[in-house]
């Protein structure tokens, strides 16, 4: 009974804390400008099924794709078992699903065990790959202390959780064979069975191990749940909505700024009366000038670095790293969110995404080639943020590099980016 009360208190606290932190992230995301992504639900569901659920963009790197699939499928399916643990914890039952499910239960537990091993294999492989394999993708200027250890913590926690799960099953199985207490014969234990010899034979010791692992496993899961909002591992939740709301247009199509259209129309036609639009700056200086979708992407990014590894600027040693653009965006909006928590919603500080986080040198190194956008397994678009910031630098500050200002001048005066006269446009016809 006391166990149940403690369990319910821990569970309630974990859920409360988690919803509170998710609420903060949601609020932070909504600090972004509005953008309409409600069109084409059919196409959006399809994209989500393919890219998020079906992992279709992961396969470009087959090895990582298979390992990731182990963890992903393991995570999704083992949740059935977590559900049982929750029910058992609240009602003080033991393996509550074994009765109604009968023979299927054995199959399920057997399946979970195999998945647990696959998850273990993948996590250990990933740990080795990160820390010993020295993959270039996992270093880079933005992969400093926290992003590096975050990845390791995630993998270690998952290894601990799976180990506890298998040890729990092994002890349970032994207790079942001993016909001890409430440990009814239930489930197949193809993997944990092999751990049996490592465990003591005394029932009381086995019960302690089983209970210990049970509590460790579930408290571990609840703790991990509350780690998510602070971690790049949050992608397991946001990947789905993020892909659902992804850009469905051709990648080459950039947005036409409506506020500019009004002004240009008024310039070309003095009789044009623009519809009243909200006054905001052109482009983005800070994260709140970006759209909620840009900010959602920042929280979805799992820092895998596929974007950066295909970026032509990055590959040739320039400062630009699309992953850093996303991480900077998230760090900055989180900073603003913390400020709001402490000082109220009118919080302002003297920092901005531009200059304090992202330098102009990074912005101007981009070739807008869309390689980063194409490479992202969850349809994040770093290019949009770069473009918005260029717009701010050019239109609000008039601080484009001098050579680009020359180009602008040529386009404006001669109708071509080079200094040639429009009258010479047909000269190509004459030569041979």
């Amino acid at each position, binding site marked *: 009974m006391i166990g149940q009360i403690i369990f319910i208190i821990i569970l309630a606290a974990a859920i409360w804390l988690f919803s509170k932190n998710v609420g903060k992230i949601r609020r932070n995301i909504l600090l972004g400008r509005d953008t309409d992504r409600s069109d084409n639900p059919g196409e959006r569901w399809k994209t989500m099924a393919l890219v998020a659920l079906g992992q279709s963009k992961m396969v470009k790197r087959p090895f990582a794709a298979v390992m990731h699939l182990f963890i992903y499928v393991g995570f999704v399916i083992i949740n059935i078992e977590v559900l049982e643990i929750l029910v058992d914890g609240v009602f003080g039952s033991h393996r509550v699903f074994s009765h109604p499910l009968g023979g299927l239960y054995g199959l399920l537990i057997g399946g979970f065990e195999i998945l647990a091993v696959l998850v273990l294999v993948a996590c250990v492989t990933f740990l080795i790959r990160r820390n010993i394999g020295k993959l270039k993708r996992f270093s880079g200027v933005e992969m400093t202390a926290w992003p590096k250890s975050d990845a390791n913590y995630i993998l270690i926690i998952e290894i601990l959780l799976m180990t506890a799960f298998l040890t729990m099953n092994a002890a349970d199985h032994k207790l079942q064979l001993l016909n001890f207490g409430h440990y009814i014969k239930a489930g197949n234990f193809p993997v944990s069975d092999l751990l049996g010899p490592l465990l003591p034979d005394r029932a009381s010791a086995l019960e302690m191990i089983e209970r210990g692992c049970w509590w460790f496993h579930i408290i571990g899961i609840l703790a991990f749940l509350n780690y998510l909002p602070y971690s790049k591992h949050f992608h397991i939740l946001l990947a789905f909505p993020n892909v659902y709301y992804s850009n469905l247009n051709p990648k*080459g199509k950039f947005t036409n*700024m409506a506020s500019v*259209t009004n002004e240009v129309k008024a310039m*070309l036609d003095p009789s044009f009366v623009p519809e009243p639009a909200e006054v905001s700056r052109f482009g983005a200086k800070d994260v709140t000038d970006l759209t909620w979708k840009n900010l959602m992407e920042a929280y979805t990014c799992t820092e895998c670095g596929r974007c950066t590894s295909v970026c032509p600027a990055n590959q040739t040693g320039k400062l630009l790293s699309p992953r850093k653009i996303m991480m900077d965006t998230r760090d900055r909006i989180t900073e603003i969110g913390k400020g709001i928590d402490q000082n109220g919603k009118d919080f302002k500080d003297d920092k901005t995404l531009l200059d304090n986080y992202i330098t102009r040198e990074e912005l101007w190194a981009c070739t807008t080639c869309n390689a980063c956008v194409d490479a992202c397994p969850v349809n994040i678009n770093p290019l949009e943020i770069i473009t918005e910031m260029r*717009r701010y630098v050019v239109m609000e500050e008039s601080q484009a590099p001098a050579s680009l200002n020359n180009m602008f001048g040529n*386009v404006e005066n001669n109708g071509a980016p080079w200094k040639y006269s429009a009258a010479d446009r047909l000269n190509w016809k004459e030569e041979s």
Partner: protein
Amino acid sequence: MSEVQILTMAEMAAAGKEPEILFWVGCAGSFDERAQRITRDICKILNHVGISFAVLGTEESCTGDPAKRAGNEFLFQMQAMMNIQVLDVYNTKKIVTGCPHCFNTIKNEYPGLGGNYEVIHHTQLIQQLIDEGRLKAEGGESFKGRRITYHDPCYLGRGNDVYEAPRKALEILDADLVEMKRCRSNGLCCGAGGAQMFKEPEKGTKDINIERMEDILESKATIVAAACPFCMTMLRDGVKGKDKEQEIQVLDVAEITVRVNGL
């Protein structure tokens, strides 16, 4: 060139005619000496298959692509709206471009500003003509057995998912076609997009076109097929930079088509 008659939309209109297709030449195609040759070749192809076409000539202006990618939305929309006015005066329905940047901008960004046209890239036109049997690979230079690789322009490939059309134009050559290790959606930028063409690159360890050159060298191709005037410039600079002008030629898909047909 004398056999190819090139009319402007104004001349067409004066004669009371409307062409089947408007050939949007683009700034590079109009002014860049190397790209001018591609422009003339596209005209030769149009002429060869008997498509009636016209160009805007002095009425054409920059689409605004480099301004937009650099963040100057004002300048872009000014250009776009003025171009749309001109295109609409001539009742334009269908446009072919020789430049993926013009292609992308007119196709994707002009509709939002009131300019709605069917826009195709010249490699798509060539593919259609091949599919319809109107264009073959005969009567000219033979490419048989020559090692050719194709460089995907970002604004044609990743930007608009046009990967097969240019390849189709090369497949009929009976040549030894090879892919670079980075191709299609994984293709590497030439380094000129996003208005980089008009500025010095940021500090780094090397230029992007040199990095791309290494893919080309690895493919051991003797001809690099391009489909964008910016890529053309960057790839040629890369070839020069690696001192390979004697071994490696950079040719636009249109030029190859003209050569193989002896136009």
